[in-house]
């Protein structure tokens, strides 16, 4: 029986899960309640901390989901019932009508321009309207509009019908009815995400009442170039650009009044991001952020925050209230808690950084599947920290923002992890189908040109018939035709038939953008027995008819030019093939902490042989210095249990007191020289997972030394674990060796582990006097509950500033600290003063980095391929990173990454071969002068010197085809398939061969 899965919710989490499942050959039903996949991320302008354009990095992802034959996208669909069955679950789906026939619609938008009914979209309400027939956002997928039934004049009153009248494709179908569909699947992954909280119950901030108080999500839409104002930040009240903008943090989070005690984890950072973007739009704007603690806990976050300080004003203090004054200006009343001044200040616009809250159906779904929700209404993993994505049910998983606020990186890790857990590679999964692509046919070029009218989208602005006649005269063109919609079934059939009839061996389609339909036409070529790379598209719609729609003659002329250019390149097209490499079915895991052990176990479960290499004489990493967790887990016991499992597994060899000394080879076949107590061991493996964790920073960098009573976090941990604590007064100093000049990043785990220290201490000694000296308590997510709990129990928190580090007097056993929120210097006695240290990359990092030619980020931790969307991959194919070596983190996050990295490695190894994209560099040995220029330029380290040392060679499996090397080669020795110098030069030449005017 083939396995199938339902993924519920198509945000980044759901899409990532669906793609990972599809990669494993699992049939996926991606169920989304709205009209498009994409979720929150599709509506963001940029993503922090890299300031990537959100839709740019997401669009290719969405397209990949759309095109994947293993994924069925079911939009406008809800789950209304679920029942356990023999294979998993029988679901009942309700599919709501779109009123547009997805097979017929081409996404031309003609209907929308003619629709008389305007409506507003969520998060865009004060700023702009769309039509009753619309897309939720420009890049929606499926790229088919839908009709909002509640607002369509036809559907409510039976009048209008304009859209139907103007749709050439007859795609509008008012007769569509709601359908109830059964679906049986073996597993369910819930990825229903979160909603931005609508802050109506914090009325003192006036949202909904004051026009110029908006939410961060609304600002995100304003900032977005494809949002309602095309990227202009304006006030809803008068359309003017605001000059004085305030952001307020923690609106609806860390707030028992609105029932949400948790911290939403992402809002500090997205707030800073939006503030910077506002500044970017208008450098003259004054931007202020009101905060309690800036929770920049994550890779690159602290640096992002520190840089933002140059242009953004940060005020510590949560405002009391906002009053609306004349001209809709806003008066904020607040206490600057660092000066204790009470201030009333006027702003033009106020942005509320609101919480993430669970989606409406969480409760209902939890009952349907009999899984738990926590007291805040998010899905709750059932097991302890060792399985943060499992639920009570074996085949139901919860990933992403639906189990609590998460940033994109964490969403992605969790999704890949869940898939890994659901389906182990070997046995269960059918092998990936290998497809051999057809080769070349015929020597001399025989080109067919297919010009599309795209309804009126091209036809109305360009003389298509004239273009066809023109095309027929071009060299090597043996056939040309026009059709109303080339992408339609009919259009594709015509291509396939003509290829056969006219013996075409190259095809030019002049139509929309290759980004939309290249794949569609490539499939048609394959079906007709042609190599898919014998296709060249001319983008005569998006880049011609639509942008010159008032210049019929010029547009027609340009269309001819574009066709001529494509034909010129087409004459030189050559077949390309998927590249396959054999992969050794063995993985090396470096580092034996929680992450390494979890990765190793997961890989063994997936059926691969594993070598686990640990530098120390014992497995477990930091487990022995970690204390009992809130959920009762004792890390040391967990580590022991995992170590036992490792031992029991026949598939795993553990090398203790061992280190990697040399690395050769590349994905599929690495050879590691490992120094073990028994000498050098050679390990041949297909992939490598690096899990080398972190080391603790030196207390000296903060000016401290340890003593009997001034102890490190680790010492304290051990003392707690052994019940050795004997004092009454405890002072904890946070950010020791962190967030300073030497280590300018935030180590993320230390606030959490410090709170855990305090919790354990107070459990043991409820009467202890505890003082925590902190800069920001970064108790992100549910850790806020621990922060609240320990302060309720009497732990005192005092905020210090890095300019005045707390002074420890070891002899007198007192700490002197300047308390910034009361502007007083306080002297606190201690029996023990605990230095909570930040993290630094573990000591072997530089060596490993050199061995594997990996990159690190500025903090020294390993660099991932993409911080948001590929956090476990590296620039090096076949090498993955996970856990605290990627960035310091807590145990459950580390284990999630471990499982996910195992998932990524399994996919790379599964099926025994590794396939790479066909667009690659190749080097003409005769032309190469071995100057090595290209080698330094390649971002993927895909070039190496040949064994004889006289020319470069391409490691084709690693090459991504960017072409950078080719651009640098002084002797034109490098060819990029699909974009060869000759092909492009022909294309370029062709531009000037006709008359351009």
């Amino acid at each position: 029986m083939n396995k199938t899965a339902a993924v519920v919710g198509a945000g980044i989490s759901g899409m990532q899960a669906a793609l990972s499942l599809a990669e494993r050959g699992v049939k996926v039903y991606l169920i989304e309640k709205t009209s498009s996949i994409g979720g929150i991320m599709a509506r963001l302008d940029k993503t922090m901390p890299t300031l990537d354009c959100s839709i740019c990095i997401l669009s290719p992802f969405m397209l990949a989901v759309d095109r994947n034959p293993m994924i069925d996208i079911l939009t406008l669909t809800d789950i209304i019932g679920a029942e356990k069955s023999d294979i998993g679950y029988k679901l009942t789906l309700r599919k709501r009508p779109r009123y547009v026939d997805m097979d017929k619609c081409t996404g031309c938008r003609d209907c929308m321009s003619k629709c008389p009914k305007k409506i507003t979209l969520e998060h865009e309400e004060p700023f702009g309207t769309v039509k009753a027939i619309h897309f939720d956002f420009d890049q929606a997928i499926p790229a088919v509009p839908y009709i909002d039934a509640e607002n369509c004049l036809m559907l409510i009153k039976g009048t209008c019908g304009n859209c139907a009248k103007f749709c050439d494709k007859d795609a509008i179908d008012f007769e569509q009815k709601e359908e109830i569909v059964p679906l049986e699947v073996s597993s369910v992954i819930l990825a229903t995400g979160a909603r931005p909280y609508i802050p109506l119950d914090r009325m003192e901030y006036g949202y909904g009442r004051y026009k110029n108080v908006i939410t961060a999500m609304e600002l995100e839409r304003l900032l977005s170039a494809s949002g309602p104002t095309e990227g202009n930040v304006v006030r809803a009240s008068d359309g003017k650009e605001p000059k004085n903008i305030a952001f307020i943090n923690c609106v609806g989070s860390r707030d028992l009044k609105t029932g949400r005690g948790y911290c939403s984890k992402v809002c500090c950072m997205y707030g800073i991001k939006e503030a910077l973007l506002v500044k970017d739009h208008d450098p003259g704007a004054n931007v202020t952020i009101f905060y309690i603690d800036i929770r920049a806990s994550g890779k690159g976050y602290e640096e992002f925050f520190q840089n933002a300080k140059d242009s953004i004003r940060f005020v510590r203090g949560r405002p009391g209230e906002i009053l609306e004054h004349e001209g809709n200006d806003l008066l904020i009343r607040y206490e600057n808690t660092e000066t204790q001044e009470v201030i009333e200040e006027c702003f033009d616009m106020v942005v509320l950084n609101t919480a993430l809250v669970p989606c409406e159906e969480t409760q209902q779904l939890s009952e349907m599947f009999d899984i738990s929700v926590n007291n805040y209404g998010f899905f709750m993993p059932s097991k302890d920290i060792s399985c943060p994505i499992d639920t009570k049910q074996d085949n139901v998983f919860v990933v992403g923002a639906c189990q609590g606020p998460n940033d994109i990186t964490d969403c992605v890790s969790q999704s890949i992890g869940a898939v890994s857990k659901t389906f182990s590679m070997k046995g269960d999964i059918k092998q990936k189908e290998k497809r051999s692509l057809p080769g070349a046919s015929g020597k001399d070029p025989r080109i067919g040109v297919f010009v599309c009218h795209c309804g009126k989208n091209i036809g109305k602005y360009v003389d298509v018939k004239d273009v066809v006649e023109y095309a027929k005269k071009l060299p090597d063109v043996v056939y040309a035709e026009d059709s109303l919609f080339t992408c339609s079934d009919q259009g594709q059939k015509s291509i396939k038939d003509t290829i056969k009839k006219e013996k075409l061996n190259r095809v030019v389609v002049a139509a929309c953008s290759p980004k939309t339909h290249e794949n569609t036409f490539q499939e048609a070529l394959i079906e007709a027995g042609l190599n898919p790379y014998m296709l060249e598209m001319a983008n005569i719609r998006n880049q011609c008819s639509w942008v010159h729609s008032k210049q019929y003659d010029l547009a027609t002329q340009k269309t001819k030019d574009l066709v001529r250019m494509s034909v010129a390149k087409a004459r030189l097209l050559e077949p390309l093939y998927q590249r396959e490499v054999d992969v050794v079915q063995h993985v090396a895991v470096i580092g034996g902490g929680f992450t390494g052990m979890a990765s190793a176990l997961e890989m063994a479960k997936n059926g691969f042989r594993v070598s686990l290499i640990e530098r120390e004489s014992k497995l477990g990493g930091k487990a022995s210095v970690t204390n009992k967790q809130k959920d009762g887990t004792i890390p040391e016991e967990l580590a022991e249990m995992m170590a036992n499992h490792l031992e029991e597994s026949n598939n795993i060899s553990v090398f203790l007191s061992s280190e990697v000394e040399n690395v050769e080879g590349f994905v599929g076949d690495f050879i590691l020289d490992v120094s073990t107590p028994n000498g050098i061991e050679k390990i041949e493996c297909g992939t490598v997972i690096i899990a080398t964790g972190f080391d603790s920073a030196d207390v000296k960098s903060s000016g401290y030394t340890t003593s009997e009573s001034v102890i490190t976090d680790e010492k304290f941990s051990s003392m707690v674990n052994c019940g050795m604590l004997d004092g009454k007064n405890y002072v904890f100093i946070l950010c020791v060796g962190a967030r300073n000049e030497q280590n300018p990043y935030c180590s993320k785990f230390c606030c959490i582990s410090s709170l855990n220290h305090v919790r354990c201490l107070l459990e043991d000694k409820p009467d202890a006097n505890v003082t925590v000296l902190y800069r920001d308590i970064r108790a992100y997510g549910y850790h806020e509950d621990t922060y609240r709990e320990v302060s309720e129990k009497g732990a005192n928190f005092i905020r210090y500033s890095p300019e005045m580090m707390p002074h420890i007097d070891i002899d007198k056993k007192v700490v002197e600290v300047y308390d910034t929120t009361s502007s007083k210097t306080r002297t606190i006695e201690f029996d023990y003063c605990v230095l909570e240290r930040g993290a630094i990359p573990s000591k072997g990092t530089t060596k490993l980095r050199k061995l594997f030619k990996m990159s690190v980020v500025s903090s020294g931790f390993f660099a991932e391929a993409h911080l948001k969307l590929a956090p476990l991959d590296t620039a090096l194919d076949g090498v993955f990173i996970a856990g605290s070596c990627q960035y310091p983190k807590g145990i459950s996050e580390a284990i999630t990454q471990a499982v996910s990295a195992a998932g990524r490695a399994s996919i790379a190894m599964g099926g025994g071969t590794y396939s790479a994209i066909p667009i690659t560099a190749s080097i003409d040995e005769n032309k190469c002068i071995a100057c090595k220029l290209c080698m330094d330029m390649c971002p993927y380290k895909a070039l190496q010197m040949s064994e004889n040392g006289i020319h470069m060679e391409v490691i084709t499996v690693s090459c991504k085809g960017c072409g950078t090397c080719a651009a640098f080669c002084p002797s034109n020795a490098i060819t990029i398939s699909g974009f060869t110098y000759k092909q492009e030069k022909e294309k370029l030449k062709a531009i000037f061969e006709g008359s351009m005017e």
Partner: protein
Amino acid sequence: MLNSIHSCMKCGTCTGSCPSGRVVSFRTRQLVEEHCLGEIDLDDIAIWYCTTCYNCMERCPRNIDITDDILRIREEAYKQGKVLPQHKDIMSYIYRTGHAVPINEEIKDLRESLGLSRIPPTTHKFEEALGIVRLLLEEGGFNDK
């Protein structure tokens, strides 16, 4: 469910909400903090600036019953005899008349001219009831010295 003042996270919402803090140097958050640390100065007149508007308490994101806590602080001050003379006067009025604001001849005339009873039907009119009020006050340790 209300939380102990110790759970204060020093957010400043309370101070930012306080109508008095805008006029005088009374800082709600600081009062909470001082109470946590046992550093309250009961001689400081600041504790009497709170109008008991409840803004801080209704807005505190950590659900701390701030206004009630301020009243507890004042009770402590009263116990130590640290009260304002004006407030003491009011207590005396209540002791003497049952009213914090007793009637006077002018108002009596006004009442009559409005067609109301010259003396309102309160402890002003009912001696016996005033006696019980006094007994209660005395039991509570207050007598009009």
